[in-house]
């Protein structure tokens, strides 16, 4: 079976290529069927590989499939190769599984889109790049996928490249911003790879892990991990590089679900988990990652509280949940983070697709202040959205409850301060999750016209919603507390970590359950009952309101202190330094020669053949001199 692993790349590549070359001759159904079909095929290959891994001894569950020698210069040797192990296969299953559902959903969601063919080419290309990212056996191979998903993200955010609206500006600018912010992170990735290779002489994950223990000093490991952290902050939208993700919602909603919630944005978390050996050495970088994660989780949740655009609520919630995952890897709870990555992929993809279904039913409207009472109009969308929100809120027994709790337990063990931040964020999370349920789906319709025309989406869209809802419900079974089957399964890749103390685990579990229910009740009282007491209780959130509505002015800060100064100095370089100073000097040289002598002046008349002649004469004279001198 491992010999067939290359099919994971070949299927999506073939899908993209077929639709690129002959898609214009096919009808939309066929284009969609090809695109979705190749992803399903890749999913089946992944399932086959999963069973092949099951067949191996746990210690042997790490298979490198060599494809070809990629770059060889003396001691620098990098292969194009796949690393099949529990971690990569788990991610592959999520990418192709959730990916296939989103492809199917998109066939219906995008059916009236004139650039339908292009959409599915991009989507298949994304799956290809994402699989390269999670399946490569080396940093450099991963980096191919890493930038490839960035390109796919750029193309899909700016899919409607000629359109704009007041909330995003030109969609094309949002795409460009995403690519450029990610490139800042990629700078870190590149520097980290340079340092790794120059110290350890290898870039494959296995050899780096083997060499790191003895070959890396604390300082070097911290330097490398800080650079990797920059890359992870870009891709996984952490402070200070998260600014691109909210704008990325300009893309079509299935894209937000697939790329900007379920898969691509978790790449940074995956990368850290994959290189956990380095992070276990690099204590400062790990601690920084944990703090960045905790603060990002809190900060983004505070913004999500006051957003009125349904997709933006989900976007900030994604940033916040990614913060949890970053906190998890920062405190060394790698398995817990990957667990949350998986459940988050289920429930956040679900929430985005359900939001897309709402949009579909409301002719593109996303402002929750115009919605209300939709639960009867779109029952499937409503029910699945509630399940997704409950999972996000961490309501006990839902998938998100177990995974978030696993991270919080890890944080509690590492640093109580981080735990408190995480727990408080969980309260905010439960509150905004249900705010997003109560305002649009309950109460009286706020916009009569919108409500009257609202309708449920077709089965091709609701079916993926129900499948994802089922996963969001039972996803917790993957890794129940005290059983930890997923974490155990991941051990060959992530290393063995001690079980948390029972008291910690019980304490965290209880507090998580209480806090989620409190958050739910607060939202219930505030947005459904509109009780005065709840309004009073949520009053303190108001202080966030104005700054949070402006997203804490971070975009403004970057524009004022980074982007604009660079542009302005570039203007000065271009018009003054380059043209006036440097070129001015170049043009001035002939002028002095002109004033120095009349004979030189003739050289300035532009008659180049004269110069050619002078070379010839000059060379002849010199040659003649030596001929006669000899």
């Amino acid at each position: 079976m491992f010999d067939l692993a290359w099919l994971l790349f070949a299927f999506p590549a073939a899908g993209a290529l077929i639709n690129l070359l002959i898609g214009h001759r096919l009808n939309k159904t066929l284009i969609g069927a090809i695109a979705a079909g190749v992803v399903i095929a890749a999913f089946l290959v992944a399932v086959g590989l999963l069973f092949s891994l099951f067949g191996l001894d746990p210690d042997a569950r790490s298979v490198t499939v060599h494809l070809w020698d990629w770059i060889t210069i003396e001691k620098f040797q990098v292969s194009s190769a796949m690393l099949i192990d529990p971690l990569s296969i788990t991610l592959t299953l999520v990418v192709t599984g959730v990916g296939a559902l989103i492809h199917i959903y998109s066939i219906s969601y995008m059916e009236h889109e004139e650039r339908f063919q292009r959409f599915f080419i991009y989507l298949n290309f994304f799956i290809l790049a994402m699989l390269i990212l999670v399946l490569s056996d080396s940093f450099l191979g991963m980096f191919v996928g890493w930038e490839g998903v960035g390109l796919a993200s750029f193309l899909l955010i700016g899919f409607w490249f000629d359109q704009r609206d007041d909330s995003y500006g030109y969609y094309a600018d949002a795409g460009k911003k995403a690519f450029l912010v990610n490139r800042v992170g990629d700078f870190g990735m590149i520097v980290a790879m340079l340092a790794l290779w120059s110290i350890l002489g290898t870039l494959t994950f296995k050899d780096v892990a083997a060499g790191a223990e003895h070959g890396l000093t604390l300082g070097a490991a911290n330097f490398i991990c800080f650079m990797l952290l920059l890359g992870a902050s870009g891709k996984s939208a952490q402070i200070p590089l998260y600014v691109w993700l909210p704008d990325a919602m300009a893309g079509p909603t299935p894209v937000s679900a697939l790329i900007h919630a379920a898969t691509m944005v978790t790449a940074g978390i995956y990368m850290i988990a994959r290189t956990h050996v380095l992070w276990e050495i690099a204590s400062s970088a790990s601690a920084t990652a944990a703090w960045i994660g905790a603060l990002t989780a809190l900060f983004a949740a505070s913004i999500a509280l006051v957003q009125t655009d349904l997709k933006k609520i989900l976007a900030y919630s994604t940033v916040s949940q990614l913060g949890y995952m970053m906190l998890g890897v920062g405190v060394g709870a790698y398995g817990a983070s990957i667990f949350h990555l998986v459940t988050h992929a289920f429930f956040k993809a679900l929430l985005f697709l359900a939001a897309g279904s709402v949009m579909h039913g409301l002719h593109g409207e996303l402002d929750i202040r115009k919605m209300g009472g939709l639960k009867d109009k779109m029952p499937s969308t409503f029910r699945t959205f509630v399940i997704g929100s409950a999972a996000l809120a961490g309501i006990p027994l839902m998938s998100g409850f177990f995974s978030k709790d696993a991270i919080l337990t890890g944080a509690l063990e590492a640093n109580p301060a981080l735990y408190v931040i995480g727990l408080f964020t969980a309260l905010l999370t439960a509150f905004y999750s249900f705010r997003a349920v109560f305002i649009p789906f309950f109460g009286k319709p706020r916009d009569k016209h919108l409500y009257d025309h609202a309708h449920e989406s077709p089965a091709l869209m609701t079916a993926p919603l129900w499948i994802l809802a089922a996963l969001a419900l039972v996803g917790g079974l993957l890794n129940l507390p005290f059983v930890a089957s997923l974490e155990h399964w991941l051990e060959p890749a992530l290393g063995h970590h001690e079980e948390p103390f029972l008291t910690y685990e019980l304490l965290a579990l209880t507090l998580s359950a209480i806090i989620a229910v409190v958050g739910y009740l607060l939202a219930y009282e505030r947005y459904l009952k509109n009780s005065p007491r709840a309004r009073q209780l949520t009053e303190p959130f108001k202080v966030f309101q104005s700054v949070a509505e402006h997203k804490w002015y971070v975009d403004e800060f970057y524009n004022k202190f980074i982007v604009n100064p660079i542009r302005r100095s570039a203007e000065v370089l271009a018009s003054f330094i380059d043209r006036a100073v440097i070129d001015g000097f170049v043009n001035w040289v002939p002028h002095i020669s002109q004033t120095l002598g009349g004979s030189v002046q003739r050289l300035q008349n532009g008659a180049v053949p004269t110069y050619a002649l002078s070379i010839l004469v000059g060379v002849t004279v010199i040659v003649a001199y030596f001929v006669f001198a000899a």
Partner: protein
Amino acid sequence: MASPIPYLLSLITFLPLIGALIVMALAGDGPKKRAAFITTLVTFVVSLLLWFNWDNGQANMQFVEDLRWLPEFNLRYHLGVDGISLFLVLLTTFLMPITIYFSNKYVTDSIGPYLALMLVLESAMIGAFIALDLVLFFVFFEFTLLPMYFLIGRWGSGNRVYAATKFFLYTFAGSAVMLVAILAVYFATGSFDITELPALAAKMSPTFQTWGFIAFALAFAIKIPLFPFHTWLPDAHVQAPTAGSIILAGVLLKLGTYGYLRFALPIFPEAAAHYGPVIAILAIIGIIYGALVALVQKDVKSLVAYSSVAHLGYVMLGVVAMNPQGISGAVLQMVNHGISTGALFLMVGLLYERRHTRLLAEFGGLWKSVPIFCGFFLVVAMSSAGLPGLNGFVGEFTILLGMYKHEPVFAILAAIGVILAAWYLLTAFRKIAQGPITNPANEANRLSDLKFDEIAMLLPLVLLFFIIGLFPNLFLDKINPSVQALINQQPAIVMKVGR
């Protein structure tokens, strides 16, 4: 491996010149165009014999021709290719048919002399890459100037005479100094031959080496062009006809980097090691400065021109790293820059022929009206921005790797260019392809998408992006041995650097 045809290198070098004579002799534009195109195509096919008969493990010169020329001065007609020059020759013969095809399609004004000059230029460029005798190299090197001068000055646009004269005088000033240094080297060592000179370096005093190196480096720095000697480049590029720009960026600039690697470095090893950091700093300034200036250009052609300053900065950075990763990466990056920037200029040319403007502000929303063009433009821009999986990344990354090993701070500074390159290229793409159509001239009914033959011009370049990006070892296997030999030749440098 023995050459399948005697005098293969001479044949490749002078085929275009013969073609030029035929073009001049023929009557009528049609036959002239066909003759020129066929000449470049045949030259390309013949040059592929080098690839197919290559001896992979061999580091030394292959297909060598060595005839006495002026024995009194030990002047020889000495030709040969190794892994460093092979792909520059192939790059030249590969780009020529594309440029000739483009010119045949779009140049209307006295096409006969134009084509003849292009062919003469091809001969001169190939000759410069395979000459192993300093004087022979110098003759070819100088001979590239004249055709390009006329191509810009006669067939260029706008301020073409100024640009052409500046190009000529600036480059000529540099090479005049080099000519003196070449003669001085001969008096010191008694040889003009690059295969002999490295062993004779000891005959030159340190002061002598320094001055000789400065003279060579200056000539090549202008040609590359290295900051701050670059200001002739935007002028020349903006005014040059499309084919001229493609050849200028694609091949002629490489004469500078190649010349530095082939001559300045081996002849003056100690001076080169001593002044390496200076070149590295200028290269880094060029990378960042070129990118920043490119970012704010209003004319897309000058944007691409400044991007060349940045890209060639990377090449020089790899060269001065003086280790296998740096130099092999630099050699590969010369080819990468040739095809990526060549393709960028080709795309700009295709756009210019349709809209007769190159100002970014004139465009917008073209993805809607000319999607095939914009699709190609995206791939070309990504190649130039160093997207992994495409050609540019392999070169850039290995160069940075080499430089990091040599001097980490330099590599980290240069890596900033990766961010900036994406910035200016996406800015250009955003302004040309994306956004709404604001100018009626860009509507689909007034603007035609790429024709079949135009796609045929671009496709070989784009395929090469992928081949080099995914299978760079096809090329590196041939480059590495010669680079290793070059490094081994200079124990003095390696020791110095190691200290």
